[in-house]
Structure formats: structure tokens, C-alpha cells
């Protein structure tokens, strides 16, 4: 009991609020005040820095290569923790608790599936169909597991997020999407090559798939945001199918514009490179032109699609009486992406971590959380789900990077 005495003495002295400044701690967030309409608006901030993340990135990369990719799972955890622990809402940070072994398992399974899918039909029709059957059977389950891993391992204010969807719901939502996605591959393998029927079937299936992409994307987002949980609270998603299609139609226009711009660009650049205005240039030139056009289309289209879809998705997401919105817009995002791509190319990739931080900062700091009472009040009334305090064991089956 000898160490009890100093403890008690310190405890008597310490009145947390009053001693904050004296102890050199960060100032408490200002007392929240509502907007004129009575809404409490909470903004997010991001404190990550490019030079700091550069070192994490380069060490992660080095160790991943040295260990032939095994360390990449640990690298993923370190990177995710860096980004979440630097994202603040209402003075508190997020955190990530993913188990690297689960990520490693997920990566091995994903690699096997990708190899089976891309090479299956090259090998034989039977192997091709077998790999598609495995993907159809396991895909929805894996998708649900991936969401459980991602949400269930993210926490805020000591409570875990979660993904509360039964496997059956996963199959109902994801199976049709997978079926549409594989239809072109299956048709290409089954219908006799180079016949008129082949062209019609393949063209029809590709066209139908393209028409359905906005709907499939919406279906996945609705599934994701409609089953996410925070403690015992549940997120809800109001359908936004028409908005999704509208954004994609305008995005398609940008793809066309980007394609024309990229082609014009290469029409001027290609002769300058070869010294002759001749379409029959060497192969590497065609590759360079293809890459330039692809990159132009990406830089022009992605910011618009990402910004508008983020707006739609968050405007339709709620958690009880907590509302979300993002002030992300296409033009600033376009300028940021253009700058990121240009500097990354100019530095042979070394700017990449700075670009990732800049993009994260913009996206995070555009987020707004609106509520009728201060967030702290809502937090006080938000409880953990069940008696799970340290996370869902089911969340650790597989860790996937689906980029969704």
C-alpha cells in the first residue's frame, strides 16, 4: 500500500477541467452552439500530414516487399489506424482494430478467387464454370464478412461500428449483382466464337451490364448504409436510385468529353514525339497514348462521380435523428486530383503518400454531422450493442479491401 499515498494526493489535487491548461493538455472543444435554425452542426477535421505518412508508407512498402507481401496485412492496419486516428469529430478520434491475420487470410482468399476467375476459362470451360460457381456461392457471404470486418473494427468514442445483415439478406442483395457481372464472361465462353450470335449476345450483355451499373452501385450502397450500426443505433438509407442514374448519365457525358480531350492531346503530342505526323507509329507510342487518354478520362470523370455520389449517399443516410452531409464538390476535387496525379507522375510515385493525405483531408473535412442536440448528448445516450465490448468475433473472419 506504499504507492497508494501519492496516488491519493494527486487525485485530490486534480480537478480535470481546471487543471487542463496547467497540465498543457489540448483545449477542450468549444461548447457547441446551434445554428440559427436550431441544428447543431459538427464538422470533421483531419490532422494527418504528408511528410509523416510518407515515412509510414515507405517503411510499410519496404517491409511488405522484404517479406514477399506477408507484412502488407500489418501495413494495412498501420495505415488505416493512421488515417482513422487523425480523423476527428467533435474533438474525438476514430480508431481501427483490425486483426492483421484476418487481413492476410482475406488477401490470400481474394488472390485465389481473382486468379481462378481471370484464368479459369483460359484453362477449360469446366474450370471456368467451376470458378464462377464458387464466386456466386461464396461472393455474397464474403461481401457481408468484409463489411463486418470493416465496420466492426472501426470505433468512435469507445464504441464499435458494425454491420448487421443476415447472410440470407447478403445473398438476396449481392447475388443478382454478381449474376449480371458474370453474364458477359459466361456468354463469351459459351456462345461459339466470332459468329453473329456471339456478337449480339456479347454486345447485348455488355450493354445491359452498363445500363445496370448505376442500379447495382446503388443497391450495394443502400445495403451497406442501411445495415451499418453504431453501438445499438442503426443507420438507415433512403433509396436514391433516380439520383444515382442521373449522376451516372452526366458522368458518361464527361467520359465522352475526357475521351475527346485525351485523343486531341495525344494527336498533338504523338507527332511531336516521333517527329512525324503518321498514325502508324510504333507500339509503345500507342500504349503511351492509351495511358494518356485513360488518365485524362479518369481525372475528368472520377472527381465528378465521386463528389456527386458522396453527396447523394450521405444526404440519404441517417442514424436516428443524426443526419449526415458532405460539402464535397466536383470542381475542388477535380483540382486536387489533377494536382495529385501530376505530382505523382512527376515524382515517379514519391508524391503518392502526400496525395493520399491531401485527398483524405479534403474528403474528411467536407463531412458534416447535423443533429437537434449536441453530439455529446447523443453520445451519452448511445449504448454498446449487446454485451460486446471488445468487438465482434464474426468481424474477424476475413478482411477484404473492396474499396466500397
Amino acid at each position, binding site marked *: 500500500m506504499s504507492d497508494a499515498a501519492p496516488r491519493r494526493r494527486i487525485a485530490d489535487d486534480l480537478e480535470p477541467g481546471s487543471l487542463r491548461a496547467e497540465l498543457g493538455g489540448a483545449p477542450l472543444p468549444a461548447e457547441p452552439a446551434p445554428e440559427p435554425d436550431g441544428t447543431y452542426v459538427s464538422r470533421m477535421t483531419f490532422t494527418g500530414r504528408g511528410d509523416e505518412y510518407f515515412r509510414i508508407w515507405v517503411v510499410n512498402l519496404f517491409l511488405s516487399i522484404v517479406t514477399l507481401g506477408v507484412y502488407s496485412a500489418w501495413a494495412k492496419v498501420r495505415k488505416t489506424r493512421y488515417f482513422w486516428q487523425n480523423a476527428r469529430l467533435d474533438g474525438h478520434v476514430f480508431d481501427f482494430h483490425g486483426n492483421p491475420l484476418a487481413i492476410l487470410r482475406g488477401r490470400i482468399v481474394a488472390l485465389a478467387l481473382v486468379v481462378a476467375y481471370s484464368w479459369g476459362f483460359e*484453362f477449360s470451360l469446366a474450370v471456368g464454370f467451376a470458378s464462377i460457381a464458387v464466386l456466386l456461392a461464396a461472393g455474397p457471404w464474403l461481401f457481408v464478412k468484409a463489411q463486418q470486418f470493416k465496420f466492426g473494427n472501426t470505433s468512435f468514442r*469507445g464504441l464499435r461500428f458494425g454491420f448487421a445483415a443476415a447472410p440470407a439478406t447478403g445473398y438476396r442483395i449481392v447475388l443478382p449483382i454478381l449474376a449480371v457481372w458474370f453474364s458477359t464472361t459466361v456468354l463469351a465462353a459459351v456462345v461459339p466464337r466470332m459468329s453473329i450470335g456471339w456478337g449480339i449476345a456479347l454486345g447485348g450483355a455488355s450493354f445491359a451490364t452498363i445500363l445496370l451499373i448505376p442500379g447495382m452501385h446503388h443497391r450495394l450502397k443502400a445495403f451497406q448504409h442501411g445495415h451499418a450500426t453504431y453501438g445499438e443505433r442503426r443507420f438507415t438509407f433512403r433509396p436514391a436510385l433516380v439520383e444515382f442514374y442521373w449522376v451516372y448519365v452526366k458522368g458518361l457525358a464527361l467520359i465522352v468529353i475526357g475521351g475527346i480531350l485525351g485523343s486531341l492531346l495525344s494527336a498533338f503530342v504523338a507527332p511531336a514525339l516521333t517527329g512525324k505526323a503518321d498514325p502508324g507509329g*510504333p507500339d509503345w507510342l500507342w500504349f503511351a497514348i492509351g495511358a494518356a487518354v485513360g488518365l485524362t478520362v479518369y481525372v475528368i470523370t472520377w472527381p465528378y462521380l465521386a463528389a456527386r455520389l458522396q453527396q447523394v449517399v450521405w444526404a440519404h443516410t441517417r442514424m436516428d435523428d443524426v443526419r449526415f452531409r458532405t460539402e464535397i464538390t466536383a470542381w475542388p476535387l477535380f483540382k486536387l486530383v489533377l494536382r495529385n496525379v501530376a505530382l505523382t507522375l512527376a515524382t515517379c510515385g514519391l508524391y503518392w503518400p502526400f496525395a493520399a493525405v491531401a485527398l483524405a483531408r479534403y474528403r474528411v473535412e467536407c463531412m458534416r454531422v447535423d443533429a437537434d442536440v449536441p453530439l*455529446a448528448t447523443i*453520445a451519452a445516450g448511445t*449504448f454498446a450493442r449487446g454485451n460486446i465490448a471488445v468487438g465482434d468475433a464474426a468481424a474477424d473472419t476475413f478482411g477484404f479491401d473492396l474499396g466500397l
Partner: protein
Amino acid sequence: MTTGAFPGFRFDGRTALAQEVVVTLEARTLAVTAKGGIALERMLLDPARVSERFAAAPRVIALNRGVMLEIPDADGRFDRALAAAGIAATPVQRMQRFWPAAVAALAGLVMIMAAAYVYGVPAAAHWLAWRLPAGFEQKIGDAVLVELDERTFKPSALPAERQAALTQRFASAARAAVPDVAYRLEFRNAEGPTGANALALPGGTIVLLDGLVAMTHDDDALVGVLSHELGHVAGKHSLRQLLQTVGVGALAGLLWGDFSSVIANVPLAFGVLHYSRAFEREADEFALRVLRENGISAHPLDDFLGEMDRRARDKGRAAPPAFLSTHPPTDERRQRLREAAGQ
């Protein structure tokens, strides 16, 4: 001994309520005190449950029963207290914080990637090429030929007796020099710029296009070209090229995995180009050996390459710089042929 007192937040894991607390460190014992001096936790600190230090992020400490602490540490005072308590950064964390170590990691990365690209991937592809089942290579070659037959090739317009004569001529030359290399010669026709060509597919199929036969004035040149292709067959170049492409793709994926696939494919394309140049040189040497063993002069092949080069230039196709070309510069190849012919 008290090493310091730090204000922070405590989350009990049951609600999202943030409780203001003061954390004290006495040696490795961590104590959490709430408003009014109420002692909440007191425990030996487990280094594995303290988050690593990031410049602007708070330190997150997991206590028992789902309790979490969030301790702001902008000035690094808490970090120093942890270090004094014997909870130091791991080697990886120290590496990440220390610029020279990060730069060294970058240098190491560049060297490892360069070594893997120049030596590792080709060696691995070489090793694997002779260990994969023969049926696998044959299957790929057959699939490629079916694909080419459907899209590009037409049946050869050469008279059957001319085909038979060429097949016979090359077979005796190959038998004399390299009897153990199995191959199959196929005749096809193709229009357009690819028409004057010969190619070696995985599994040993050599395709000779009519355009190339029409261009040569001397069958010795044709034997030279076919021997060059036989060199590709003997070295399993097509299969190795394929495996190397996959290998370089995997390397690029490791490096740029989280970036645009466009960027990831740039090193891939350069990789393919680079490797095929090494294979072309090897195939040229193989062709010279076949010609030498048969007492055939390398001059017709040399003249033929010159003719190909002239035609390419006439069509206005400027030769790309050497490092971008799939074939070594023609001048360099002809130089080697002339040297061999002169011996």
C-alpha cells in the same frame, strides 16, 4: 515515482459518453482519476495496448473490459513519460519516425525492386518454365493459335509443294544442328503490317506468314528466320515471357497496388519490352548456331534484316529508341550477323 499527470478522455465501452479524466503514470503503473478525485482504474500498462505515436493524433490506450483512453499528446510529453516508464517505440515505429531510416528504406526498396526486376523475375520464370507440365504450355499455345486463326490469320496461299519443300529444308537443317528441339511448322497468311512475319508460340508451334516468304529472295534467309524462331522455342521464350509478365505485374501490384491501375501497368509494359530484347539476342545466337552447323552463310539473313529495316523506314515508321523497342536495334543485330558470317 510519479512521471507525470495528463488530461484525457475515458470511454467505458458501454456508452459513447466521453468522460474527462486525468491519467497519471507512476513507473509502469497507470492510474485514471475522474472529476472530484474519484479513482477509476489502476493497472500495470501493457505496451501492446498503447497506440503508436503520430504527430497530431492522441494516444489511444485500451484498458480492461473495453475501457479506452484518449490522451492528447501534441507536445510529446506523454510520449516521453511512456518512454521513461519503459514503454518505448518498437523498431518499426522508430524507423517510421526517423527520416534517415525512411530514406534508407526507400533506397533499399529501389535496390530490391531493381534486383528483382533484372535478376529475380527472369530467374524465377526460367525455373518455373521447365517445371510446369508440358500440357500447360501446349494448351496456351493452342489457345493463342485458335485466337489468331479467328481474328487475324487466313490459310496460307503458298502452293502445297512449296510448303512441303520449305518444311523439309528447315527440318533437315534443324535435325542436323539441334535434333532434340521439338517444334511444329504452320503456314498462314495475314494482311496488313503484320503480314511479313514469323512467330513462335508457347508449346513449340512456329507460324510462318506468306508475306515473309514473298519478301525473301533466298531460302537460306528463311532458314535463318525459322532458326531464330526455333531459338525462341528451345528457350521456352513465350512461356517465360508470359510468366515474367505475371511476375512483373505482381511486383508492380505490390508497389502501386493502391494506385490507379493505369499507373500500375506502365512498368508492366516496359518490363515486357525489356525482356523480349534479351530473348531476341538469345534467339539470334541460336539461329547463328543452326546456320553454322549446316554451313549456311549468315549473309542472306543479314540482307533480309536490312531489307525489313528499309521497308519499315520507307513506311515512315521511325524506329523507337532502343530501350522502348521489342527487338534490339537492327544495326546491332546485323553487326553481330556480319561478324559471325566473317568468322
